[in-house]
C-alpha cells in the first residue's frame, strides 16, 4: 500500500475564495464534472439557535418556509424554474446549520443564483401557507416516529443536556411542533435574525471557473443586507453524576443501548478531538476488538456505532448498540465499558492508528466524487468554522495522533460524565 506524505493536502480540488462587501463568503471548487455545478448555501443557524422556550424545531420548520415564495417567484414559479432546468434541489437542517442545495447544468448557474438569492432576500408568505407547512412538518415527525433509533436519540439528548440547546433534536419537541401554526410572527423575526450574509456562506462546485462564479455572486448576492443577530447559547454545566433514562417501545423490536459522554466542540487543531475519532474507529468500527467480540464472535449485537459528530459547541461521544436479546443488554454494557476503560489504560499499537488514519483519509477521498459531495464537504467546514482551512487542518491533526493522545482523550469516559439510555419493547 502506498501511503501519502503526512503534510500533503487532503482536499483534492482547488479551493478559490472571496468575501463580498456584505460579508458573504463565496467558495468555488472547480472539478471534473462535465457540464454540472452544485450550488450550496450555508446558513449557520440550526436547532442550536433555538434558545427560546416553546420554539424548538423552528430552524428546521423555517427551512420548509424558505420554499414558500417571494413577490417575484411564487412557490410554483420557483419550482417551475428548477423543473425546466431538470435540477435536483432540496434542503436540510441539523443542530448547527441549515443547507440549501441545487445541482443543475453549470450553464444554468446564473439562473440558479438569481432564484436562490431572491428567496434569501425577499422571502414572503401568508398565514395559510405557513400553517399548511407546519402540518407538513408534523407529518415529517410522524414518518420518523415509527423508527426506534429516533426515539432513543431524542431521549438521549433530553437526558444528557440540562441547559444547552442540544437538549432537543433538530425536529424539536412534539409539543412545540404541534403549536407551530401559531408562530407566524415569530417566523418573520427568525428570518430577520439569522438569514443574513454575515451568518451564511456560498459554495459552488463543479464544472465552473472561479472568477465567473465570483462575478455572478457579486451580481446576485451583493444586495443581501448584513446584520445577523448575536447568539448566546446557554453553557452546559459540567456533569457531576451519571444520568440514565429508558424508552419503552410498543412493538417487538430489538433493544437499543446508548452510552454518551460530554466531549469537546469541533476544533481542527485539537489533537484530543481527532484522537477520539481514532479511538471510535480503532475500537468499535468493523475490525475493532469490541466489534469483533460483540458482533462477530459472541453475536450479541447486530449493529454498533461509535463516534463524535462534529459540532460547534461541546457535544457528545456516542456509543449505540442494537442488542439481539433483552437479557444481554447488561452484558453488552459491561463489554462497552471495559473497552472504554481499556482505551485509557492501554496504548493502541501505532500500526492500528496508521490503519485508522488511512481508512479515514481514503474514506473521505472516496466520498468526493461528485459536485454535491465536494460542495458538501466544503459547506460543512464553513458551517463549523466559518472558513475552509479546517478540512486539511483536521487531517493534518489526525496524522499526528499517537497512542498517548488517544489514552489522554479517553479521560472523558468517567462514570460521572456518562448518560445511559435504553429502549426495549
Amino acid at each position, binding site marked *: 500500500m502506498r501511503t501519502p506524505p503526512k503534510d500533503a493536502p487532503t482536499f483534492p480540488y482547488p479551493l478559490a475564495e472571496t468575501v463580498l462587501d456584505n460579508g458573504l463568503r463565496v467558495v468555488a471548487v472547480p472539478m471534473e464534472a462535465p457540464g454540472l455545478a452544485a450550488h450550496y448555501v450555508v446558513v449557520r443557524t440550526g436547532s442550536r439557535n433555538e434558545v427560546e422556550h416553546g420554539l424548538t424545531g423552528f430552524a428546521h420548520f423555517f427551512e420548509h418556509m424558505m420554499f414558500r415564495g417571494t413577490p417575484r417567484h411564487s412557490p410554483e414559479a420557483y419550482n417551475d424554474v428548477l423543473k425546466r432546468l431538470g435540477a435536483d434541489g432540496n434542503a436540510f437542517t441539523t443542530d448547527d446549520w441549515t443547507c440549501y442545495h441545487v445541482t443543475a447544468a453549470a450553464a444554468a448557474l446564473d439562473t440558479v443564483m438569481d432564484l436562490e438569492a431572491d428567496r434569501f432576500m425577499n422571502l414572503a408568505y401568508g398565514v395559510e401557507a405557513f400553517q399548511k407547512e407546519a402540518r*407538513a412538518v408534523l407529518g415529517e415527525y410522524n414518518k420518523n416516529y415509527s*423508527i426506534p433509533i429516533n426515539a432513543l436519540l431524542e431521549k438521549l439528548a433530553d437526558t444528557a443536556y440540562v441547559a444547552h440547546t442540544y437538549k432537543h433534536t433538530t425536529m424539536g419537541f412534539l409539543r412545540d411542533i404541534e403549536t407551530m401554526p401559531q408562530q407566524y410572527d415569530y417566523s418573520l423575526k427568525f428570518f430577520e435574525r439569522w438569514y443574513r450574509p454575515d451568518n451564511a456562506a456560498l459554495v459552488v462546485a463543479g464544472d465552473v471557473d472561479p472568477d465567473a462564479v465570483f462575478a455572478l455572486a457579486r451580481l446576485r448576492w451583493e444586495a443581501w443586507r448584513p446584520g445577523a443577530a448575536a447568539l448566546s447559547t446557554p453553557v452546559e454545566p459540567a456533569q457531576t453524576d451519571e444520568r440514565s433514562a429508558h424508552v419503552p417501545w410498543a412493538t417487538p423490536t430489538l433493544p437499543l443501548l446508548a452510552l454518551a459522554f460530554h466531549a469537546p466542540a469541533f476544533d481542527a487543531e485539537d489533537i484530543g478531538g481527532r484522537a477520539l475519532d481514532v479511538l471510535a474507529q480503532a475500537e468499535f468500527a468493523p475490525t475493532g476488538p469490541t466489534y469483533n467480540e460483540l458482533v462477530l464472535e459472541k453475536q450479541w449485537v447486530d449493529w454498533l456505532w461509535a463516534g463524535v459528530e462534529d459540532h460547534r459547541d461541546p457535544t457528545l461521544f456516542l456509543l449505540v448498540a442494537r442488542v439481539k436479546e433483552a437479557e444481554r443488554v447488561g452484558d453488552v454494557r459491561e463489554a462497552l465499558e471495559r473497552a472504554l476503560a481499556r482505551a485509557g489504560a492501554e496504548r493502541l499499537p501505532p500500526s492500528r492508528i496508521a490503519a485508522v488514519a488511512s*481508512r479515514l483519509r481514503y474514506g473521505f477521498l472516496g466520498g468526493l466524487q*461528485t459536485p454535491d459531495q465536494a460542495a458538501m464537504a466544503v459547506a460543512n467546514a464553513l458551517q463549523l468554522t466559518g472558513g475552509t482551512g479546517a478540512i486539511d487542518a483536521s487531517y493534518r491533526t489526525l496524522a499526528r495522533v499517537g497512542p498517548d493522545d488517544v489514552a489522554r482523550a479517553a479521560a472523558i469516559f468517567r462514570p460521572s460524565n456518562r448518560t445511559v439510555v435504553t429502549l426495549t419493547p
Partner: protein
Amino acid sequence: MRTILLPSKGAPLVSIRLQFETGAADDPAGREGLAALTGGLLVEGGAGGMSFREILDALYPMAAGIGVQVDREVSVIYGTVHRDHLDAYYDLVRRVVLEPRFDLADFERLREDQVNAITAGLRASDDEGLAKETLNALLHGGDPYGRPVEGTVRGITAATREDVIGFRGRRLTRDRALAGIAGDVTDRFVKRVESDIGSLPAGSPEPPRVPRSRRPEGVELTVVAKPCRAWAISIGHPIAVTRADDDFYPLFLANSYFGEHRTFNGVLMNAMRSKRGLNYGDYSYVENFVQDGGSTFPLPNTPRRAQAFTIWIRPVAPAHAHFAIRQAVRELSHLVEDGMTAEAFEETRAFLLHYSRLWAQTPARRLGFALDGVFYGRKGLIDELADRLPRLTLSDVNAAIRRHLRADALFVAVVADPEGAPDFLERFATNAASPITYDTETQPEVLDEDREIAVFPLHASRERSRIVSAASMFEGDGPDTSL
C-alpha cells in the same frame, strides 16, 4: 458471461459490479429468503483461506468494502476502491466469488439478522416499508415476487448452510454472470476478471419464470394492524410494461408529472402536502423504485420482469387516512380521464431530459444503469430517455396512460393502529363520506374541492376489505401467503 467496460482515463477510483441473474424469485419453496442469505454469506462468510474478520482487516485501510445487493431477479456483488489498492482489493473480491467458505458462525449470525429484519425491522419499526411490502404481496399473491427479499420467518429459519452451498452452486454460475468494470484499468486486469468469472461452474440457465400478478377487483383494502401514531399507505395495480417495452417511456413521463419521487413537481405532492399539509410527501412510480441512500435518485440493479403502478402516501393522521386515499385516487382518475396538457407534457419532458443526467454522476452508478440495460435488452435508462423523449408526442403519453393506468381497480395497503382500524375499515368498506377538518387556515377553493373529495366513489366492499395483524405478515404461514 458478458463484460461491460466503462473506461475512464486517470480516474482515481475503480468500481466493480458482478451481477448474477438470480434472486429471491428463485427461492425454493420452504426456504424463502435463501437467495438473500446466500448473497449475504458470500461476502460475510470468509473466503479463500481467510475468515470474514480477516477479510475485513484487509479491506479496512483501503476504506473499501465488498457489498452485496440481492433483489427479486438479480444479485450484485459490488465495490469501489482507490486505484492505489486495486490489486489487493480485487484479490479479495475474487476469493469471495470463487472460494466462499460459508463459515457456520457467520451463517448463524446472518440467518438471525435476516429473521430480525422481518420481525424487529419491517413488522415493528418501518411502517412505510411494511405498507409497501404488503402492497407487493397483494400484487403478486403467493408468488415468490410477493415476499420481501428477506423471505419469511419460517423459510429463513428452516434454511441450512447446505442449502446456501447448494443455491450458490446452482445459481451463481458463469452463464448467469455479467461483469461490470469502470475506471482506469488495464486490459490485463479485465482479462483476469473475465477468466475468473469464466471459471465458475457452467450450470445450464433455466428459462426465467414469468412472475404472476393479480389484478384487483374494484378497490381492495388490506389494513395491517400494529401500534402506530400515523398511518402509512401504499396503493397500486400491476402494469404490463417494463423498460423493455416502448410504452414504458411515455408512462414514465406521465408518472413524473403525477408523482415524481421527492420533488414538488408532482400533482399528488402539491395537492396533498402543499395545499393541505396532510403529510410529508406523496409520490408515484411505474416500476419498482428504491431510493439510493440519502439521494433522491433511483438505486440501479433492481430490475424486474413484473412491474406495478404504485402510489406512496407518507404517514397521515388517522382521521385523514380515508380522505387521503380518496384524494390520491381522485387525482389518478383525473389523470386517466383527462391525460396531460400540452404544457405539462413539454415541461415534464424538459425536466426529465436534464434531471435523468444527474442519476449517473459516479462510475458505480453508470455501471449499474448499464447492467440494467442488458437485463431489459435496451440501453441504460438514461440513454433510452435521451433517445426517446425528444420523439415522444403528447398523444403517445395520453394513449399510454389510458392503456395502462386504472383508478377503479386498485389494491390499498394501510398500516394502522389496532384501535382505529375496525372503524376505518367499516367506513371504507361501506364507502361512507370522509369529510376533513383542519386546525389550520385553508383557502376557500380548497375547502370547496374537499367537499367533492369527501364523497368521491372508491368502489370498496366488505368482501374485499380486511384487517390482518402485523405479527402475521411474512411469517410463512400467516395471511400474507393467502393474500
